[in-house]
Each structure stands twice: as structure tokens, then as C-alpha cells.
């Protein structure tokens, strides 16, 4: 059992949470974006995580394999003065709820901190073991 394997698993968790934070920041920055390159308003992005199994030991690290679009469509806001309004005066805006994103952000932060705690605990185990026979 190698300590560096443990640290690799934790590192993969930390990287995945960083990517989730990136998607959350992208969503929050683009809350009111009505124009993208494809002509549609910005679609909410979701990071997809996948477990990377170590078959022998049945343990897994994690990897963010993709950042997918949320398929639930856009919301319509009535604003005839907006340059992107359609004939009835409605503007298509991204379907991003600030409260959802903030809750996701808090979960991501706690998960990051929990992974760092695991790292500290493993390191203190290792250092204590090095003191055997001192």
C-alpha cells in the first residue's frame, strides 16, 4: 500500500472540484448572456465526473471527463427594449439560478477542503510511521 497512491486519488478529487468551480464561475459570469457564437443564448454547463477504477484494489480516483450543456432550455424574459428581443418582445435568457449555483459552489468548496483533510491525515500517518523505532 503506497502513500503516493493515496495522494494520487486525493489529487484527482481536488482537480475534479477545481473543474467544477470553473463551470460554476462560467455559469455565474454568463447569467445574462444572450449571444454566443452559435446565435443562441448561453446554455448552463455541467461538469460530468467519472470514477477511474484501480481494478486490483477496487478503489477509484475521479476524473472530470466532460463539460456538458444543460438541456432544459432557456427562460423567456419580457423586455422589448433589448436588442435581442423577438417580435413579441421576449428575450431568451440562460436558465441559470443564482441560488443553485451558490449551493453547488459551497458543496464544491467543502469537498475540496475535505480532500485536503484526507491528505493531511495520510501525511501525518506516514510521518508517525517514520518515527517507529526512534
Amino acid at each position, binding site marked *: 500500500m503506497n*502513500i*503516493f497512491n493515496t495522494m494520487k486519488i*486525493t*489529487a484527482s478529487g*481536488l*482537480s475534479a472540484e*477545481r473543474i467544477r468551480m470553473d463551470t460554476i464561475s462560467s455559469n455565474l459570469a454568463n447569467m445574462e448572456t444572450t449571444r454566443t457564437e452559435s446565435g443562441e443564448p448561453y446554455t448552463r454547463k455541467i461538469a460530468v465526473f467519472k470514477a477511474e477504477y484501480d481494478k486490483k484494489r477496487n478503489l477509484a480516483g475521479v476524473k472530470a471527463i466532460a463539460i456538458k450543456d444543460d438541456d432544459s432550455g432557456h427562460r423567456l424574459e419580457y423586455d422589448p427594449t433589448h436588442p435581442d428581443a423577438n417580435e413579441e418582445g421576449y428575450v431568451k435568457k440562460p436558465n441559470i439560478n443564482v441560488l443553485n449555483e451558490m449551493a453547488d459552489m459551497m458543496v464544491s468548496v467543502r469537498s475540496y477542503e475535505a480532500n485536503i483533510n484526507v491528505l493531511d491525515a495520510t*501525511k501525518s500517518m506516514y510521518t508517525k510511521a*517514520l518515527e517507529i*523505532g526512534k
Partner: protein
Amino acid sequence: MKINFFTPNAEIFNIGNKVESNSSSSFGEILTEKLNELNNKQLEADSLTQDFLEGGDTDIHEVMIAGEEAKLSLQLAIQVRNKILEGIKEINQIQI
């Protein structure tokens, strides 16, 4: 040659030779190899730090974890050296 109806196999005289030829690395080589691995860990930590400071694609936790790995490997090497020194001291104290 028969001894009490038991014919020894001539192979038993070759076992010692076989063991020596299989272990091709001496203690010195193993030591150098492991010290090189240790040095590689230090260099990797260095290069990751450099990459991070230049604004590359590395995350801060990768830099920190590489630094920790290098530090822990060095501490393990120091402890191994301590144990070896203790052993040598013991052997030196054997009275003839």
C-alpha cells in the same frame, strides 16, 4: 554414485552459482538507483513549481502535493540511512 539407495542429483551443486547470476544488481547499484529516483522526485517538484509560477496549466494543489512527495521521500531515505548506521555501529561493536 549410490549412497544407501539414494542417488543425489548433481544439480544441488549448481544452486549457489544460479543465485549469484540472477541477482545482477549489487547493493551499490540499488542504492544509486533509489537515490536517482529520489532526485527525480525533487526535480519534478521543482519543474512543477516553475511551471506554476510562469502561469502554466498546473493547479496549486499539484505543486503542493509534488513538494510533499519529495519531502516525504527524503525523510524516508534519511530514516533508512539512520537504520543502516545503527546496524553498522552494532557490527563494529562485536568483540573478537
